């Protein structure tokens, strides 16, 4: 932060303040600065600069002290983060360790966080599927949560806007459940993906296996090259940060783009304590920031504030933003702030063997897999549970390893490469229903290192989720059997909510200020110059990986703020 001149000048007033520099905060920064707004971007963690701060990016497997495995001392001291699939030697430095920011689990919840410039956009799994009206209509049709105040047509141009800049690889599949977007070329599906796709087409009306759309530059456009990003090289080591800028993260894309305008002030090590509300003006005037090193509190002011701290931290900041007007937290007259949280149910998996296609294999590496969009309860309610699930599907040729023998014989065996049969697998991505009882609140006495109350998290599965797990396993088993896959094995990890890293809600959008916190442009109903456009704003979750939707909502909300001159 010392590098930034305007920060050193002690500047305190800006046009906009963006809290958070991850997936959605980066977009807010880009859009505001492009519109000429002086923008302060607050990041609680350290700076991570593209290329410069990816220490492991070019390391070979044998250069990792434990070949990728985390030492027992670390996994035992950090049980929560150690459950995350990407917490390995090559990317562990991008994850928050359990004791670095403790929270209270009223029910088991694995809160996976990345506190640095770029946030979790550095390590995300890069899947980017659009929502459709089948998703936006969900709560109203099925009678849960509240009606979304927007529909697909409101967001569609913003999806396009975001996709063109981010770079999304995909096929135009023509599916109403998963609208097409602005796509760069897709990678190939495997022979067995194609085979399974045909089996589904033959046997079912609405089960379409497609190439999973993902944020990779398969063929960069001029706009991507201008960002300094290049073609994806299929390394599939994305979680380390990419030396080619081949996938999208804030660090390689939105943040440097915003910096180039000269309008952005980026302040790392800035933990936001609360938003300042001015009763006379009837709006927010700024934020209180605690410098994470000196623990000093500093105030910054702006006409518009965007809260993009990551779903649960956004809830925490608003709950902690109390004033005589808002004793229960900013915009929270009805006590709904922190409630109706939801997530994605990733518990179930299925694996099997495919005995066919032995004459074929894959070559190189793919950075995504096939995707089966939701097929349950799409046009109408048809099961004993609400909503449904999408599924990932992957297939690869197994490798047989001969470890028989001793001495020279063993060496020869180890040098042989014999292909085994194809292995196929799938995992579920289930919609969960937001409920008032799934909520976060501030702990009454426990505080964090910066004197801010710790977050109590109480989020659990319900009967609808259990039925959905069962249905996914039954349906996938049926589909696998129709494909003739053998050795079918199903599992339910029973993993705690949170490990999906798709926590959403608590500051939901809605039409009615009495039952929601945000309006159709993501403004707090009761404090209109505060916008929330990260996962916290989500009224329902549907089944798609959510980042693309956060980015589109953010760009749309900034456009609204700019057009209205800061409200």
């Amino acid at each position, binding site marked *: 932060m010392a590098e930034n001149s305007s920060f050193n000048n002690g500047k305190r007033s800006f046009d906009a303040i963006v809290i958070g520099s991850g997936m959605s905060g980066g977009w807010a920064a880009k859009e505001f600065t492009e519109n000429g707004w002086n923008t302060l971007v607050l990041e609680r963690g350290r700076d991570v600069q593209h290329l410069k701060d990816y220490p492991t990016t*070019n390391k*070979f*497997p*044998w250069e990792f*002290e*434990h*070949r990728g*495995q*985390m*030492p*027992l*001392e670390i996994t035992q001291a950090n049980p929560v983060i150690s459950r995350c699939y990407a917490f390995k030697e090559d990317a562990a430095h991008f994850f928050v360790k359990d004791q670095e920011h403790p929270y209270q689990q009223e029910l088991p919840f694995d809160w996976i966080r990345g506190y640095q410039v770029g946030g979790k956009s550095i390590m995300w799994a890069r899947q980017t599927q659009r929502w459709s009206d089948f998703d936006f209509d969900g709560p109203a049709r099925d009678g849960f949560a509240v009606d979304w105040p927007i529909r697909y047509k409101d967001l569609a141009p913003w999806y396009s806007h975001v996709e063109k800049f981010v770079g999304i690889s995909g096929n135009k599949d023509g599916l109403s459940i998963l609208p097409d977007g602005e796509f760069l070329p897709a*990678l*190939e*599906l*495997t*022979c067995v*993906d*194609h085979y399974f796709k045909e089996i589904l087409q033959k046997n079912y009306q609405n089960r379409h296996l497609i190439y999973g759309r993902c944020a990779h530059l398969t063929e960069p456009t001029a706009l991507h090259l201008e960002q300094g990003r290049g073609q994806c*090289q*299929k*390394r599939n*080591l994305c979680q380390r940060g990419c030396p080619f800028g081949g996938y999208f993260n804030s660090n390689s894309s939105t943040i440097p783009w915003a910096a180039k305008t000269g309008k952005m002030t980026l302040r790392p090590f800035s933990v936001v304590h609360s938003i300042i509300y001015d009763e006379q003006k009837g709006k927010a005037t700024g934020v209180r920031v605690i410098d994470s090193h000196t623990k000093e509190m500093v105030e910054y002011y702006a006409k518009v504030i965007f809260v993009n701290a990551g779903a649960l931290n956004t809830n925490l900041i608003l709950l902690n933003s109390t004033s005589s007007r808002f004793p229960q937290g900013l915009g929270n007259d009805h006590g709904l702030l922190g409630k109706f949280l939801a997530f994605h149910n990733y518990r179930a998996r299925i694996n099997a063997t495919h005995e066919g296609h*032995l*004459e*074929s*294999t*894959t*070559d*190189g*590496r*793919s*950075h995504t897999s096939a995707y089966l969009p939701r097929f349950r309860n799409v046009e109408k309610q048809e099961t004993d549970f609400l909503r449904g699930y999408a599924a990932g599907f992957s297939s690869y040729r197994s490798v047989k390893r001969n*470890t028989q*023998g*001793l*001495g*020279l014989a*063993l*060496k*020869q065996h*180890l*040098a*042989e*490469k014999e*292909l085994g049969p194809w292995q196929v697998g799938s995992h579920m991505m289930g919609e969960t229903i937001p409920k008032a009882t799934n909520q976060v609140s501030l702990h009454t006495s426990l505080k964090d290192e910066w004197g801010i109350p710790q977050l109590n998290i109480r989020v659990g599965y319900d009967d609808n989720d259990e039925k959905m797990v069962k249905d996914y396993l039954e349906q996938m088993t049926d589909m696998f059997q129709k494909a003739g896959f053998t050795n079918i094995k199903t599992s339910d990890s029973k993993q705690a909510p949170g490990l999906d890293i798709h926590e959403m809600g608590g500051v939901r959008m809605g039409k009615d200020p009495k039952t929601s916190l945000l309006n159709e442009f993501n403004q707090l109903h009761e404090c209109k110059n505060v916008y929330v456009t990260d996962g916290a704003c989500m009224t329902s979750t549907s089944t798609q990986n959510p980042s693309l939707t956060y980015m589109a909502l953010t760009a749309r909300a900034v456009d609204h703020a700019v057009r209205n001159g800061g409200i």
Partner: protein
Amino acid sequence: MPTSRRQVLKQILFVSAGSALIPSCLLLPQNKGLKLKHISVNADQEMIFAAFADTLIPKTDSPGALEVHADLFVWKMLDDCTPKEEQEKFLKSLNAFSAAFQKQQKQFFSNAASTERLAFLEQLELSKDNEDPLVIFFTKAKQRLIQAYSGSEFFMTKVQVYEQIPSRFHGCVPVSNQPIKPA
């Protein structure tokens, strides 16, 4: 590749493993033992396991387990990534292995001729008795050494080549029966 085992010890294990560096390509351990972060390996254990590794995957016209320091990597993984009970079991089983060899051959495993060592390991390799602690140890030690050997730079650049930057993905290609370079 670093030339001295002691240098490698320092690099791989981050321990001070004795002061005298022998300026030669000495691959067998010196008589010092290993003080690691969590476990202590005495000189006998270090030498026996090195001899075990050398017998299992010897140097031929290509490097063997000792040349790629597979034994040291096994110690490191045992020290940093293995639960305490398993660490203790491994060291105890190594002692039992050594004692069994001494009883049968009337000499130290690490002093025996390579043919004698190989013959002893062959008995364990061929044994069908999966309950025998010696067989269990042999299987575990072999597995750990194969992991270390096949994760080495030599193996991943010369035997089964790891491609860091494939720059391509083809979803469906014919299986080619390219001969793989023998080790």
